[in-house]
């Protein structure tokens, strides 16, 4: 029986019935006309970016999944307030960010350890054939950086995650946070300085 309902839900949510959805604005227009399925175009387009932004902020897979989905639901409810022609993700990101920050404040979350939610980017390792000792040291260092990162103010953590973990350009960060590029650079510098002093303080 459950299988039948699951199938029905899949059919209802199917976005392939909207081949005319070509871009974000088109999808938003269809949503406003009451075609919920058209929203699938936007969700599928941005779900991974949304999830990783939330994961960086809250530091837990389950919470990031839940919050990024909830933000999509809220964005859908507020879809009439979206200005056509602007970036959907930037608009959505404000809702997501707000949700995550409220969640952090209310739940006093503790981020999971890096080994639980992260992995090593092998292509970035300077020497892949490092000794066991060096590898252990590096693993410890990554855990320390992750712990210190999660002790920073959310705004500092956010900008470091966007730049260093998710590789957004200055322009993309400026669009997301609605600040000039110069401010992105100064906020990035301050955040890194705070991270460095946090590391020096907790791991002298």
């Amino acid at each position, binding site marked *: 029986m459950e299988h039948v309902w699951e199938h029905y839900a899949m059919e209802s*949510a199917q976005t392939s019935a909207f081949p005319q959805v070509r871009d974000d604005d088109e999808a938003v227009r269809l949503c406003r006309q009451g075609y919920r399925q058209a929203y*699938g175009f936007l*969700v599928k387009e941005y779900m991974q970016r949304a999830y990783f932004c939330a994961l960086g902020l809250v530091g837990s897979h389950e919470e990031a999944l839940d919050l990024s989905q909830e933000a999509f639901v809220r964005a859908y409810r507020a879809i009439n307030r979206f200005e056509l022609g602007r970036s959907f993700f930037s608009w959505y990101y404000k809702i997501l960010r*707000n949700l995550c920050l409220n969640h952090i404040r209310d739940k006093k979350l503790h981020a999971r350890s890096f080994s639980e939610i992260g992995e090593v*980017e092998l292509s*970035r*390792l300077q020497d892949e054939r490092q000794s066991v000792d060096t590898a252990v040291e590096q693993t410890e260092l990554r855990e320390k*950086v992750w712990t210190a990162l999660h002790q920073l*103010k959310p705004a500092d953590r956010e900008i470091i995650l966007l730049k260093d*973990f998710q590789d957004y350009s200055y322009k993309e960060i400026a669009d997301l946070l609605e600040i000039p590029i110069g401010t992105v650079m100064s906020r990035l510098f301050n955040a890194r300085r705070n991270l460095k002093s946090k590391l020096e303080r907790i791991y002298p």
Partner: protein
Amino acid sequence: MTIEREKFERLMTAALDGELNADEQREFEALLAEDEALQKEFLQYKQLKEVALTMKLKMPSQEVWDRYWLDVYNRIERGISWVLISIGAAVLLAYGGYKLVEEILRDTSLNWAVRLAMLSLIAGLALLLVSVAREKWFTRKSDPYKEVLR
């Protein structure tokens, strides 16, 4: 903060992120060549950046992405159901309350003190409900992004 220091911070940030153009690169190298403390500082930030670059958040399984839109869709659908249930419940509660008050006022067999207590209880509950609903409504309306740090 001196202008030189400000310039160094801006150039160093761009250097760490690989965003320096040729002129800025020369300017930055000249600044570093003049001052050992700046060289040391740059090296520390560079090491931190290198560690951060080796850290990547894990990609969830394909199954998570396959269900993602369906979960959002279900939530949207259920949200609409909750709105309808809430409207229905509010109307029924208001009507029930009205009928109850009418009945209490009409029923002369009850002691006046009991009638008064029942009316007071109903009025109190109604006020409480309105007050909570109003608080929720205004908080949501007036300050939707109060936690957003700019």
